[in-house]
């Protein structure tokens, strides 16, 4: 949470930054070393996740308990897990669950946060007051544990986990978006458009939304990294997907029992999470540089 409010504060400052067209943005991203590194990592992870069935050398779920906990070998590049399943194949397949869930939740909270935040910022008055009270309350609360409590009541499972995370994490966006909307609303061109006779909807869609887009994109990128970590944390606590599905957080959870005997079981999924999150963070950071050079 603290993390996000820092993000929000930084992202808010991006609001006035003018954005080059999409083509220009792409070029600038490639030129920025940080962003490029992030882009490469994220692309590799996404491709790996998408092509997992083709890339994985083994069926991720097939066991061979008599050859369990094996160190890396030519047959099993990353070794085998506690049930003799191929670790590399599980990491690859796990990417689909971990990364895509984080992305899906990221998208969901983005949408909810965007709608609520814009509503709050544009409507003002009582609506804004009520929404912001709710946001304050939710923010005054440890989101990870709230999500935990929600999953605790709904029961474990990926869908429940995603729901709980969405229910809890939209708040950050809502607050950020509202702040941005308020800032954009104060900018003279909004009043200028009003003076043309434009209605609220037009202002929201054509002026406010495009002008808050870049900080929101930056936040979305960084937030996805955080979601990936939170998701891993929750599945690490055993609240994620059920067996045998491979998922990085639950792989870590399984691996922790073999920490001393087969540390690689904790190493690979942890590295996978770290590298993916790092990619997203680099990308977000690079995006921020590109969108607002004075922050760097």
């Amino acid at each position, binding site marked *: 949470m603290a993390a996000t409010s820092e993000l929000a504060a930084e992202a808010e400052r991006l609001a006035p930054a003018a954005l080059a067209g999409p083509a220009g943005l792409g070029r600038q991203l490639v030129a920025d070393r940080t962003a490029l590194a992030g882009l490469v990592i994220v692309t590799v992870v996404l491709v790996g996740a998408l092509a997992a069935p083709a890339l994985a050398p083994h069926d991720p779920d*097939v066991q061979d308990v*008599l050859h369990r906990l094996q160190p890396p070998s030519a047959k099993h590049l990353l070794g085998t897990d506690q049930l003799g399943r191929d670790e590399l194949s599980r990491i690859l397949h796990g990417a689909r669950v971990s990364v895509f869930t984080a992305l899906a939740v990221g998208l969901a909270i983005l949408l909810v946060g965007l709608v609520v935040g814009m509503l709050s910022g544009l409507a003002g008055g009582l609506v804004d007051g009520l929404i912001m009270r709710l946001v304050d309350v939710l923010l005054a609360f440890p989101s990870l544990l709230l999500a935990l409590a929600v999953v605790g009541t709904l029961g474990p499972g990926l869908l429940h986990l995603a729901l709980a995370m969405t229910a809890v994490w939209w708040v950050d966006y809502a607050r950020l978006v509202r702040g941005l909307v308020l800032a954009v609303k104060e900018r003279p061109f909004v009043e200028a458009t009003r003076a043309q006779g434009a209605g609220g909807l037009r202002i929201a869609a054509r002026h406010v939304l495009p002008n808050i887009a870049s900080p929101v994109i930056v936040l979305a990128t960084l937030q996805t990294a955080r979601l990936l970590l939170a998701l891993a944390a929750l599945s690490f606590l055993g609240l994620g997907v*059920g067996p*045998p599905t491979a998922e990085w957080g639950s792989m870590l959870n399984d691996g922790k*029992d073999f*920490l*001393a005997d087969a540390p690689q079981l904790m190493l690979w999924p942890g590295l996978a999470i770290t590298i993916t999150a790092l990619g997203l963070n680099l990308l977000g950071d690079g995006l921020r540089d590109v969108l607002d050079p004075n922050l760097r």
Partner: protein
Amino acid sequence: GSSGGSSGAAKKGGVLTVGAEEDAYVLSGDGANVGQYPLNANVFEGLVRMDPEYGIVPVLATSWALRDGKTWRFKLRRGVKLHDGRPFTAASVKYSFDRIAAQGGGTPGFAKGGTKVVDDHTVDVTPSFPNLRLVEQIVHPENSIIAAGSDPVKKPTGTGPFRFVSYRRQEQLTVRRFPGYWGAAALLDEIRFKFLPDANARRLALEAGNVGLVLGVPDEAVKNLESKGFAVHVSPPGAYEAMYANIGGHKGYTLLQDAAVRHAIEYAIDRRALVQGVFNGQATAEQTMVPARLLGADAQKVTGYTHDPAKAQQMLDAAGWKAGDGGIRSKGGRRLELQLVDGFPSAAVHTGVPEFVQDQLKRVGIGVRIVTTADSPAYTARTKSLQGDLWLERGNQNDANPAFLPALLFSKAGLFGPGDYQKMFAPGGRFETVIKQALSAPDEARVKGLVAEAMHTLIDTDAIVIPLAGVRQVSASESKVRGFQPQPSGLQVRYDRVGLAA
């Protein structure tokens, strides 16, 4: 047996830190049991205890006899002191058993007002139902003796070789040698039980030198610990890993009413691979609930199953279960997909087992969905809902009565009336007849024979119990720890003979 160098002389004195499992003490009401059950810290003693061979050893009682088919008379040991300095008398026995009676009587069935003081050193116990196996059952430390009038939460007061010093919930229980102990004084000055709920954490704490002895070590750690010079203490199997098949025909969970499927499951599982792989050799492939050691020669009546997936496939084919989508068989549009409920006494003890079963059954065309409950209360709650086909449990033989557990779980009549287990698992028929006889047989050898036969029907004939493995208790210690004797039932561990190398 114990592997590792814990032989050699132990000196008197020293402090031992023990990495214990989850703190599950109850802290209020008549059920309060700090220092007693489930972690038996030897603050309290029972009238009797159980040796590793399931034999009964007198402790606070010196002799006992069934007087009229209902009432047991215990002669109590003289010269025993309570930790508060008062002498131990029948009053404490009455106080302790009445507390249990107030709670519902416990497994021996103590009745309200059923315990009578005859004189200071004689007590009569009349349970609420005739209980021929009362003595075998009171070995469970739940039935330990608490000083009359004392409250275990405020100050646990017993007669054991150690007396209570301090307790911090979820953190630590500290006990110190009781100098006034009636038997041979304990060797250690002090024991600190640190609650470390995670098995791996306990093991790492041992490796890091933060604790000297850990209870419940992960199976796969054994080799590694031994290679690092730690002593590993492995008990004979006293617990079992098994699945129960829901044959109750409850809505949505009727697949296992088909005996062919149950038998196919029995044949489909490679128990040897399970023992070698998942249990890392720290288990046996014995196929019974009641430990074979307890049944003695009669144990051979339970034959069990060989691993024969082809036979399993055949049986399923013959029963009309045809290969279908994604390798899962189906019949008349119903997919052979079972729900496996995992969580008793915790999901952690079963680590790897559900997935292993899932994989094994997949190979013969049976799908398995795993449902993990958070803990045992959640598991119990689920049994109420009757939702689940296969119920994975780890059971422990914590007393010396072999008939108790099978009767409790599978007898239609039940020990305390029919419950949720009966609705799902009770086969009736031959099993019911035999187990009833076992309960009322006065002679111990006869009981063993009858129980073995009951197990045979339950496993070999009806295939309601799908035994997976006999499980050993694995503990480990620094090599300087001496005299630790692993017990098939972890609750019977004695610490008074444990000491540090001289």
